[in-house]
Structure formats: structure tokens, C-alpha cells
């Protein structure tokens, strides 16, 4: 354990392999210390938030997709008012407007945040590294079909591509198409075939053989 700080709210800072050395990292630590010592939030609240963030994962999105495929009324609510619909499943991103876009035979949706890396982290966990890369952010808005092809998604011109740039207060998820050959599957079985990339839109066809029994 580091013994650089021995007062209680220092314990929530968990160093990686090195101590912070950059000005920005030190400034961040100093700001955090001030916010806690001035009572804006407590170290315990910070720990709980970090814990909740760690527990969020793409599986949550998979559960939403599977329920939407098996419950048309829920799907309707999810597409029309995602922020409130996901509360039924025990998730909550309010006051963020959680917005779900459905892929169809004639539409493919893909999500990006060109300005930074906005992502529904509280629901889906950490975003993939490529989602934060300048390459993806700059290119998927202006040549989405080329970028999608690099991810293995080949789209004909009969499929409309809709790019959603998450520039402000909304967070997005794609509802992938239910794969063929899954008639009669339970929501749990269905959730197991949904991938993180399908929820972002960089995967279109889900592989039903990828599920481990």
C-alpha cells in the first residue's frame, strides 16, 4: 500500500503501477481532495460510484435487447422513452435521456461521440478503446460504410445508415435485430448472443452459435 496519504479519504485512490506524475494527474488528485474535504461528496460515495461503474457491463444492454425481442410492449416503451423503460429492469441513467435505435432490414444504426467519448457507462460499463480513438470518432461520421466494413459489416445501398453523434445530454444504444433461428428461445438465451459491439452498431449480425451451453 502507498503510504503517501494516510488520512481516510485517500484510501479510495488506488494507484496503478506508477504514482501520478503529470501536471494534469496531480491537478486531478488535488481537486478530488478538495472536493471531499469541502464536503461536496464523501469518499464513501465515491467508492459506491466506482463500484457501480465497475459492475455495469454490456450484459445489461443484452438483457434490454432480449426483453425487447420477447416483449413487444416493452420494446415500444424502450424505443419511445428509454430512460424510463430501463428503470423497469432496475437500471437508471436519469437525468440522461437514454435513447435506443432499432436496426431493421432497411436501417442500420451506429453510435459515436465525435467530441469526446460519451457512452452510457452507467449501463454498459467502460467503452472500448477504439470507441475513444480519434480514428473512429473522425471517420465514422464521414465514411460510416467504410468504417463498418472494417468491422466486418457489409451494407448494401438498400440499407440506410444512421450515425448518431452523441454531442450533448443523450446517451445511445442500438437494438440489434433478433437473429434468425432463435424462435422459442428464452430471454436469457437470447441475451447471451448479444455483444457489446452490436449495442454500439459496429456489429450487425449476431452469431447464435457463439453461445456456450
Amino acid at each position, binding site marked *: 500500500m502507498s503510504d503517501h496519504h494516510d488520512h481516510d479519504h485517500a484510501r479510495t485512490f488506488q494507484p496503478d503501477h506508477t504514482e501520478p506524475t503529470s501536471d494534469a494527474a496531480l491537478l486531478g488528485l488535488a481537486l478530488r481532495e478538495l472536493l471531499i474535504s469541502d464536503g461536496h461528496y464523501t469518499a464513501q460515495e465515491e467508492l459506491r460510484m466506482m463500484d457501480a461503474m465497475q459492475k455495469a457491463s454490456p450484459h445489461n444492454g443484452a438483457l434490454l435487447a432480449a426483453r425487447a425481442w420477447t416483449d413487444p410492449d416493452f420494446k415500444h416503451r424502450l424505443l419511445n422513452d428509454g430512460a424510463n423503460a430501463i428503470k423497469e429492469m432496475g437500471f437508471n441513467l436519469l437525468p440522461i435521456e437514454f435513447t435506443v435505435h432499432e436496426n431493421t432490414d432497411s436501417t442500420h444504426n451506429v453510435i459515436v461521440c465525435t467530441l469526446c467519448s460519451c457512452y452510457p457507462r452507467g449501463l454498459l460499463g467502460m467503452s472500448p478503446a477504439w470507441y475513444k480513438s480519434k480514428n473512429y470518432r473522425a471517420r465514422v461520421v464521414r465514411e460510416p460504410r467504410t468504417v463498418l466494413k472494417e468491422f466486418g459489416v457489409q451494407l448494401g445501398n438498400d440499407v440506410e445508415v444512421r450515425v448518431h453523434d452523441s*454531442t450533448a445530454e443523450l446517451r445511445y444504444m442500438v437494438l440489434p435485430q433478433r437473429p434468425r433461428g432463435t424462435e422459442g428461445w428464452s430471454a436469457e438465451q437470447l441475451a447471451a448472443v448479444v455483444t457489446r459491439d452490436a449495442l454500439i452498431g459496429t456489429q450487425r449480425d449476431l452469431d447464435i452459435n457463439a453461445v456456450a451451453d
Partner: protein
Amino acid sequence: MSEPRFALGQRVRIAARDVAVHHRVPAYAQGHVGTVERICGLYGQPETYIHGDGQPFTRLYRISLAQTDLWPDYSGSSRDRLDIEIFEHWLEASS
């Protein structure tokens, strides 16, 4: 401020501004005309959050733009769209 100035489906132009404060309007979308796809809630302005609490809270919209309009050399379908969130004070009515 609570009544939206723009209606669903209305044609609007995204302002082109060179401002020295933080805002959330990417350069590629500035100056372009699109349609209101969704009327969202009221949120603090990025420009005033930097020195306060985001007042006045302002209407947010989702604006749908044609890719072939955004990028002159766009090679995909003419039906391809890009939807983006823009605050009301960055929008003006367009024909």
C-alpha cells in the same frame, strides 16, 4: 424558455460560430441545414457551465442531416443520415 421554438420535422440551420468557449457543436455540422428529429429536454448550456451552473437551461434537439449534404464526396446511399444533438441557441429556422 420551456416552449420549444422549433417543431418536429422543421427545417433548421445549425449556426456557424467561432466562439472561444467550450461548446458542443462540432465544426463539421456548423452551417448545415437539417430537420428536427426529436425535441429533447432542457439542459444547462456548455458555454456557461464553465463559470457557473449552465444557466439559462436551454432546449436540446436532435437534428437529422443528410450525409450527402454534410460531405460533398460522400459515397454511400443518398438516404444515409447523421443525427446530432444541438441546443436551441445554435439553431435558426431555415426554408
